[in-house]
C-alpha cells in the first residue's frame, strides 16, 4: 500500500494540475481572459443554446416538391416530343413523382419510348404493352438531385442567415435531407423563420393578353399558359389572378444585386441588377414585347405586372408592389441570397431567450454548488479525515470534468449541469465502497495497512462494474438523444470516467501521503 511509484505520483499530480489548468478559464469572463498570459489555456466550455439563449431549427428540404416541379417543367417537352412524332396520347400528367400518360396507338410504343428517352437521360421511361406510360427519375438521379438540392439549400440558408447579421450561426446537414441551424443569441427567430420559409424563386413572365384569367378558367387553359394568383394585400384594383405564359423570360438566378429603394414614388421598392447574360435576355424580351404586360412572379405569386413601355437595356430594373420598408428589404435580401432549389419546412424549433438562459445558468449553478456542499459535509460527517480526502478528490474531479469538457469543446446544456450535479453525488460512491470495505477488513482483525490495501483492491471490481453500467446508459443517450439530452450524456459519461480516476487514484495518493507523513498507528474510520 505504502509503495507508490514516483512516476505514478507524478502522473496523478500532473493530471490533476492539467485538470485545474484547463478548467480555470471557465471562471473568467471573456474580457478577463484576454488579459491572461497566453500560456494559460483560453478554451471555455461551450454553452448550449438553452443556456446562452438562441434558436435551434431543424429544417427539411422538400426534395420531392423540387422533383415534382422539375417534372412539371419537363411535361411540356414530353408533349412536344409526342406531337412532333405524331403519336396519339391521353392523360399526360404528373402523379406521385412521375410523369404518367397513355399511348393511344399501341403499335407505336417502341417509337414513343425512343423519342421520350432522349428528353432527359436521368428519367427512366417505362411503357406497358397496353400503352400506360410512366417516366420517373432513376434512383441514382434522385440521389444526386437530393444531394445537390440539400447542398445548395445549405448554401442559400447560410447566405440568408449571414445577411441578417446573426453571429456564429451553425448550419449543417443532418441525415439525408435535413439541415440543422443553430442561431446563438436569437431568442425570437420569427424574422429568420419568415426568411427561410420563402423559396424566393423570382421569374419574369409575359402576361397572356388574349383572354383574362377568369375566361381561361371557364374555357380551358390555352396551351403553354398557367394561371397564377396575385400576391395577397396587393394594390387596390389589382386583378386577383393572372393568365401567364409559362415560358420564363428571365429568372432570378441571373441577378447579381438587389437593394431597397426608398426614394421610389410608389413607396418602398427593390432595385435589382442582372448579370450580362440576364441583361441581354431581359433586353431582348422587353424589346420584342413593348406595349405588353410582363409579370414579376415571386414563389408563384404575381407581385406586379407593369406595362413594358420601352426596351430595358441597362440590365437594371425595379420591383414595386405594395411593399413596406421591412418587406422590401427582406425581398432584396432574399434576391441577393438566391432562391432555394426546393421548399423548406421547419420540423422542429427550440428557442430560448437570453433572460431565461441566464436564469437557467444561475439555477443550475446554485443547485450544483448546494449539491456539492451537501455531499462534502455528508462525507465529512460519516468518514472524518477520510471523508475530507474524498472531498478533495471530489474537487479535483470537478476540475477534471470541466477541463475535459473545455478541451473537447463539448456543449454544456441545462440537463448537462444536472449531469454534473448528479455525478458529484455518484462520484463519492467509489469512496464509500472503498471505505466501507476498509472498515470491514479492520473488523475482521486485519492490520491497518493490509486493511487499506484490501479495501482498495477488493472494492475495485465492484466500482468498475457500477461505473461501466452507468457509462453504457450515457453512451446510448449520446447516440440516440438530441440537443440538450446529448449535453447530459456528455457530462454524465465524462463525469463517470473522471470520477474513476479521482476517487480511486487521487484518494489513494492522499492516503498514502498521509501515512508517510504522519505515520499514524490506526485508521480514523
Amino acid at each position, binding site marked *: 500500500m505504502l509503495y507508490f511509484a514516483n512516476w505514478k505520483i507524478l502522473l496523478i499530480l500532473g493530471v490533476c494540475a492539467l485538470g485545474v489548468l484547463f478548467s480555470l478559464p471557465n471562471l473568467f469572463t471573456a474580457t478577463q481572459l484576454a488579459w491572461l498570459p497566453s500560456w494559460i489555456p483560453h478554451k471555455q466550455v461551450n454553452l448550449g443554446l438553452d443556456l446562452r439563449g438562441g434558436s435551434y431549427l431543424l429544417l*427539411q428540404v422538400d426534395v420531392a416538391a423540387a422533383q415534382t416541379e422539375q417534372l412539371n417543367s419537363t411535361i411540356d417537352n414530353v408533349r412536344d416530343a409526342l406531337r412532333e412524332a405524331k403519336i396519339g396520347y391521353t392523360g399526360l400528367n404528373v402523379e406521385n413523382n412521375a410523369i404518367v400518360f397513355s399511348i393511344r396507338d399501341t403499335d407505336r410504343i417502341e417509337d414513343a419510348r425512343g423519342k421520350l428517352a432522349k428528353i432527359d437521360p436521368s428519367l427512366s421511361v417505362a411503357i406497358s404493352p397496353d400503352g400506360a406510360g410512366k417516366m420517373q427519375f432513376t434512383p441514382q438521379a434522385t440521389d444526386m438531385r437530393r444531394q445537390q438540392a440539400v447542398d445548395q439549400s445549405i448554401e442559400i440558408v447560410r447566405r440568408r442567415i449571414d445577411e441578417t447579421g446573426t453571429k456564429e450561426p451553425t448550419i449543417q446537414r443532418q441525415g439525408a435531407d435535413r439541415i440543422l441551424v443553430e442561431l446563438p443569441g436569437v431568442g425570437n427567430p*420569427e424574422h429568420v423563420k419568415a426568411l427561410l*420559409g420563402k423559396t424566393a424563386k423570382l421569374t419574369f413572365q409575359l402576361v397572356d393578353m388574349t383572354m383574362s384569367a377568369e375566361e381561361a378558367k371557364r374555357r380551358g387553359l390555352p396551351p403553354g399558359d398557367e394561371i397564377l394568383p396575385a400576391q395577397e394585400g396587393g394594390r387596390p384594383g389589382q386583378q386577383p389572378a393572372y393568365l401567364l405564359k409559362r415560358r420564363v423570360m428571365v429568372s432570378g438566378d441571373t441577378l447579381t444585386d438587389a437593394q431597397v429603394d426608398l426614394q421610389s414614388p410608389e413607396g418602398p421598392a427593390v432595385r435589382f441588377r442582372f448579370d450580362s447574360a440576364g441583361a441581354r435576355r431581359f433586353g431582348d424580351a422587353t424589346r420584342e414585347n413593348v406595349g405588353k404586360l410582363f409579370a414579376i412572379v415571386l414563389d408563384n405569386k404575381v407581385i406586379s405586372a407593369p406595362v413594358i413601355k420601352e426596351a430595358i437595356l441597362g440590365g437594371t430594373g425595379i420591383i414595386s408592389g405594395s411593399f413596406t420598408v421591412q418587406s422590401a428589404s427582406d425581398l432584396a435580401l432574399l434576391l441577393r441570397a438566391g432562391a432555394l432549389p426546393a421548399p423548406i419546412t421547419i*420540423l*422542429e*424549433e*427550440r*428557442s*430560448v*431567450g437570453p*433572460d*431565461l438562459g441566464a436564469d437557467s445558468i444561475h*439555477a443550475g449553478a*446554485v*443547485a450544483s454548488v*448546494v*449539491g*456539492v456542499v*451537501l*455531499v462534502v459535509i455528508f*462525507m465529512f*460527517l*460519516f*468518514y*472524518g479525515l*477520510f471523508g475530507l480526502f474524498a472531498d478533495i478528490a471530489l474537487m479535483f474531479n470537478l476540475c477534471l470534468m470541466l477541463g475535459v469538457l473545455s478541451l473537447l469543446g463539448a456543449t454544456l446544456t*441545462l*440537463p448537462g449541469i*444536472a449531469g454534473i450535479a*448528479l455525478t458529484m453525488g*455518484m462520484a*463519492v460512491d467509489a469512496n*464509500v*465502497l472503498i471505505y*466501507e470495505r476498509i472498515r*470491514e477488513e479492520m473488523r*475482521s*482483525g486485519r492490520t491497518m495497512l493490509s486493511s487499506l490495501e*484490501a479495501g482498495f*483492491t*477488493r472494492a*475495485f*471490481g*465492484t466500482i468498475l*462494474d*457500477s461505473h461501466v*453500467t*452507468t*457509462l*453504457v*446508459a450515457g453512451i*446510448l*443517450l449520446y*447516440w*440516440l*438523444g*438530441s440537443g440538450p*439530452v446529448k449535453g*447530459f450524456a456528455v457530462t454524465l459519461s465524462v463525469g463517470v470516467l473522471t470520477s474513476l480516476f479521482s476517487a480511486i487514484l487521487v484518494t489513494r495518493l492522499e492516503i498514502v501521503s498521509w501515512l508517510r507523513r504522519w505515520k499514524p498507528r490506526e485508521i480514523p*474510520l
Partner: protein
Amino acid sequence: MIRPLIVIRRVPKIDFMRWHLIGFAFSILLGAVSIGLFAAIGLNLGIDFKGGLLIEAKTQGPADLAAMRGKIDALNIGEASLQNFGAPDEVLIRLPQQSGGDKAQESAITAVKNALGEGVDYRRQEVVGPSVGSELIRAGALATVLALAAILVYIWFRFEWQFGVGATISTIHDVVTTIGLFAIFRLEFNLTTLAAILTIAGYSINDTVVIYDRVREAMRKYRTMPFRDLINLALNETLSRTILTVSTVALAVLSLLVFGGEVLKGFSIAMLWGIVIGTYSSLFIAAPIIYYIQPSRRATAREPADDGGETPRPGRAKGARS
C-alpha cells in the same frame, strides 16, 4: 486525528429474506398498476414526443391566465393549456399539434404572439412537428431497450447468467414503476425525463451489482451456508454502503429539485423516485430472485476471483468469518 462523527459500527443482522415475498407482491402490484395505467390513460407526453407548441411567456405583473386563455381560444387552434411556471408572472402555454402536417405548426406560434399583443416577453418557444415527434419516440424506446439489453449482457459477462436475469428484472421494475409514477401524477414526460429513466437504469444497477458481488464472494467463502443466509449476509454487509451512497446521490438530486428551476423539475422527480425505488428493488427484488434461480456454486467458485484476489490468502475460502 479527525474521526467521523457518525459511524455505523456493527454489521446489522436484518432478515431481509423474511420480507421478500411481501416485496415481490408489492412490486408485482406496483408494476401491474403502472402497466395498467400506462395502457389505460397513457403518459402525459410533452411536445417532444407528441408534437405541438410550447411558449413560455413573462408578463408585466402577475399574469391573467383567464384573459390570455380567452385570446388564444379565439384563434381556434386547439385547446390551449396555460399554467403558471415557477412565478406568478411566468406562463407556460401549450398547444396541441396543428392539423396539416409539419408546415402548419409554425404559423400557430405567430398567431398566438399576435393575439397576446404587446407587453409580453417570450422566454422560450418550442415547436415539434409530427414527423420529429414520432422519430423521438422511436429513438427513446430504442435507447431504453438497448440500455437494458446492454446492461444484461454486461452483467452476464461478468457474473453467472442468473445474476443477469435478476439484475434485468429489477431494472425493468425500476423503469416500469418510474413510468407508472409519471402516468399516475400526470407529470410531463419529455426528453429530459427519458434521460432520467436511462440514468436510473444505469444507476439502479449499481446497488444490484454491489450486492451481487458480495453474494458471489460469500458463495466462495462459505461453501456450506444456506443460500438464504448468504443473501441476507450480503445484504447486511453492504447495507451501510447502500444507505450512504443513496444519501449522497439523493442530496445532489434534491438540490437540483429545489434549486434547479422549473425546467429540471420533471428530471429531478424521476431521478429521486428512481434512486429510492432502485435501492428498494436491489434489496427486495434483485437479491431474493437469486434465491429462486440459484447460480451454481461450482461455476461461481471456478471463476477467477476478480474482486481483489491478487493476494490469495490462506483460509479465505473457508470459515474466514468475521
